[in-house]
């Protein structure tokens, strides 16, 4: 058993920032991550980091833009915390040496981005995430935080009081990928989840293979509610074979989308008569899919993004990177042919419910980054708002966990304060009704001990035992390979819970997920090795994806309106009277329980009035 | 990280065949360098027969130079020296940061030049050996 004050799970932008912050508060911090820190998916971010740095701009404007972008589903205290702290955090990165792009006068460059009223996106070429991740890892090395890399966290060690709000998290259980050892990590002060998004629930995503939402699934099963899971951002231009992102910059420079019939469909089919290709992400994604669904897609799968008319010189000057991406990942020469593109899952707005200090409703359990939902993005994330979220909320969670004096949070977590419960209209039984392994919640990865009656170390030990058993079971049983389950799950998610959602499709998805869950009962790991058993780990990740896919679908089915990234055929309009509330999902002994919490639109000194979202 | 470690198949399989220009240049430079030091030592050894007197020296040299093998070896030595010089110049340029992008071309150029110079000097070297 390892022991530290603060255990940070995950080493992307959020995890690194949290660890550094906790260390600066004097805590003994360790990072446990299934990948070496520099392999985290934060490195893939291209565009930039929003921060109101210059005269003429203000955090209030940034907050306004963010609230509007969120389609009024963001919580004002979280949004204001983000926008107020972002400038300091960005300058902190600069002081840590991050290689930002520069102006003539040597100051950090900023550029305009979709949905922003001021060019406030700081960036480092088209590799902002890479620079951010590496800069922070370097500072982590400097600060001497202990890193357990290639340790896959399997579960949390949480007490099992009746109400999640009374539970406490005492650590995590992790699997050493290189040796197959299962060990406990006790956290004296707190555990911070920073495990990134659940993109792999979809078969076509810009996210990494490692983005399996493990932290969300673990927290969910430990009783922490998942918030607004139905809000998934789909990016309209990703390469069909790999999902690699083709930046919005191509359309910004004048790239044109064509269907199989050679029509410039954004205009000719009337999807966006004013903005055409430059309409917002969700609009373009829906247009592309409509074309494909109506038989005008190329190979029944994608459309063409053509930039040849821009001329070689301009392309080389501004979009050189895109040429490499198309060449390396699709085998297409963007100077000679149009590039194939289709919508791809890109970002999860929802996640583990937290307040603006990163706390969840379980004591000692924090979450930050894409896996968390303090609710800054609401129904739709603006480009360039995820990276500031990592550093702002990563730092806050780290400080809080290390015991720093902080302003109490305004956002409430768990079933406290104002909330309403609801029924789920599902065609099948949801969740894991006492099926996986033993029938009790222990084996199911929920909670482990009678509240308070045992000491903290044995709570962690019990969790370790439970995980050891699970691993052994997976290794020794005989059955099907998880990849079959995973690919079926991904297929159904992309087919039914994509940019277009309609009741019947969502219900079909729930049926398919039920079936996938039932088949998962029979999975086994065929690689018998304890050394670097990726088969085992992916099998475990698939379980997490099942839980999250189900949560996303339940949310999508419940929310009968069109808001931000979520669109419903039955109700293609925003319904503020009914739906200015967060979708919350709690795992109640294996059964998902749906409830709602009102959105907080009251900011520090103003209230954000919902307006039509038009640009 | 690997000297004591034998991966059988991997370490020797297909490695040298895939060497790039810079690697070959390194291999050749190393080889020629070692030949040259070797020669330097023998050379001085041979020359120091002069310490044993005039006749001994002239005798040794003329016997040696009279042998065809020695003449051919001398052509080899020239090739080795020329390559080492030319590639050495290439390396000096590299050290100064000049022409790094065309390092492969300059390597090929040294090879070709070495060949040309060697061939051109064969008559002179072999003169009187037959």
């Amino acid at each position: 058993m390892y022991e530290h004050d603060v255990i940070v799970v995950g080493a992307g932008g959020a995890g690194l920032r949290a660890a550094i912050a906790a260390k600066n508060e004097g805590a003994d911090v360790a990072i446990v991550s299934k990948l070496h820190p520099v392999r985290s998916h934060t490195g893939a971010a291209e565009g930039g980091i929003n921060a109101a740095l210059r005269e003429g701009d203000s955090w209030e404007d940034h907050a306004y833009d963010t609230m509007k972008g969120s389609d009024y589903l963001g919580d004002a205290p979280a949004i204001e915390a983000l926008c107020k702290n972002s400038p300091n955090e960005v300058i902190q990165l600069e002081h840590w040496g991050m290689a930002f792009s520069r102006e003539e006068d040597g100051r950090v460059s900023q550029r305009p981005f979709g949905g922003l009223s001021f060019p406030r996106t700081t960036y480092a070429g088209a590799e902002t995430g890479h620079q951010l991740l590496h800069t922070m890892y370097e500072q982590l090395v400097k600060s001497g935080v202990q890193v357990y890399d290639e340790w896959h966290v399997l579960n949390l060690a949480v007490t099992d009081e009746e109400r999640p709000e009374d539970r406490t998290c005492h650590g995590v259980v992790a699997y050493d990928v290189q040796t197959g050892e299962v060990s406990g990590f006790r956290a004296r002060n707190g555990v911070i989840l920073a495990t990134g998004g659940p993109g792999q629930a979809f078969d076509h995503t810009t996210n990494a293979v490692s983005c399996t939402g493990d932290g969300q699934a673990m927290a969910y099963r430990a009783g922490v509610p998942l918030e607004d899971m139905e809000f998934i951002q789909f990016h309209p231009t990703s390469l069909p074979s790999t999902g690699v992102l083709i930046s919005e910059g191509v359309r910004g420079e004048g790239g044109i989308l064509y269907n199989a019939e050679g029509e410039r469909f954004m205009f000719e089919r009337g999807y966006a008569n004013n903005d055409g290709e430059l309409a917002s992400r969700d609009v373009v994604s829906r247009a592309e899919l409509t074309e494909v669904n109506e038989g005008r897609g190329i190979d029944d799968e994608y459309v063409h993004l053509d930039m040849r008319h821009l001329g070689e010189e301009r392309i080389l000057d501004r979009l050189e990177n895109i040429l490499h991406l198309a060449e390396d990942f699709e085998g297409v020469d963007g100077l000679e042919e149009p590039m194939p593109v289709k919508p791809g899952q890109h970002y999860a707005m929802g996640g583990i419910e937290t307040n603006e200090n990163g706390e969840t409703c379980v004591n000692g359990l924090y979450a930050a980054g894409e896996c968390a939902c303090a609710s800054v993005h609401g129904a739709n994330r603006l480009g360039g708002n995820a990276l500031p979220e990592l550093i702002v909320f990563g730092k806050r969670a780290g400080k809080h966990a290390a015991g720093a004096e902080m302003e109490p949070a305004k956002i409430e977590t768990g079933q406290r304060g104002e909330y309403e419960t609801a029924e789920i209209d599902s065609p099948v039984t949801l969740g894991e009704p006492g099926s996986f392994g033993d029938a009790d919640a222990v084996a199911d990865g929920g909670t482990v001990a009678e509240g308070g009656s045992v000491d903290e170390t044995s709570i962690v030990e019990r969790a370790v035992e439970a995980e050891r058993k699970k691993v052994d079971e997976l290794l020794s049983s005989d059955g099907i390979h998880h990849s079959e389950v995973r690919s079926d799950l991904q297929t159904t998610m992309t087919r039914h819970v994509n940019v277009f959602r309609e009741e019947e499709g969502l219900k079909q998805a729930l049926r398919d997920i039920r079936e996938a869950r039932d088949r998962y009962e029979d999975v086994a790991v065929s690689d018998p090795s304890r050394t670097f058993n990726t088969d085992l780990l992916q099998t475990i990740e698939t379980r997490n994806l099942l839980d999250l896919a189900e949560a996303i679908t339940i949310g999508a089915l419940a929310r009968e309106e069109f808001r931000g990234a979520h669109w419903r055929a039955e109700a293609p309009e925003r319904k503020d009277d009914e739906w200015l509330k967060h979708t919350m999902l709690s795992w109640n002994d294996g059964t998902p329980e749906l409830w709602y919490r009102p959105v907080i639109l009251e900011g520090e000194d103003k209230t954000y009035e919902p307006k039509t979202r038009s640009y | 990280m690997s000297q004591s470690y034998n991966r059988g198949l991997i370490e020797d399989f297909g490695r040298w065949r895939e060497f790039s220009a810079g690697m070959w240049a390194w291999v050749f430079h190393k080889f020629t360098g070692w030949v040259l030091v070797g020669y330097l030592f023998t050379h001085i050894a041979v020359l120091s027969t002069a310490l044993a007197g005039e006749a001994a020296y002239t005798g040794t040299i003329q016997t040696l130079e009279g042998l065809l093998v020695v003449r051919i070896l001398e052509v080899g030595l020239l090739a080795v020296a020329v390559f080492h010089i030319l590639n050495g110049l290439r390396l000096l340029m590299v050290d100064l940061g000049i022409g790094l992008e065309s390092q492969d071309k300059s390597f090929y150029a040294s090879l070709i030049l070495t060949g040309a110079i060697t061939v051109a000097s064969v008559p002179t070297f072999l003169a009187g050996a037959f």
Partner: protein
Amino acid sequence: MAERYSSFQPGGRRWLWQRITAAFLVVVLAFHFFLLHFVYHADEVTFALSSARMESWTYYSLMILFLITATFHGVNGVYNALINQGLTGTKQTVVKWTLVVASAILIVQGVRTANAWAGISIL
């Protein structure tokens, strides 16, 4: 892990000298080859001829310098190559001193030969 913060920087100096000697050797070696194979032919070498050249002080000093630089360059090159192959610790020290001794012998022997030609009889 490589050792850090050595205030002693032999690597750097030897590296630089390897370059300087190389630059010098280009000229002298080319001259040497040219003189002894193209101006005079190999089959014509005699003690007398060598002697005649050595008696010129400039030629004599050039050759001594040639000998010293070539020895340094060659032996240092060999030493480097061995370090590159991972030679460390005692072995490294042994090799280093062996090479130093060999170089010393080489130079001494070379100078004695030159002296013999030049008619100097110190050694």
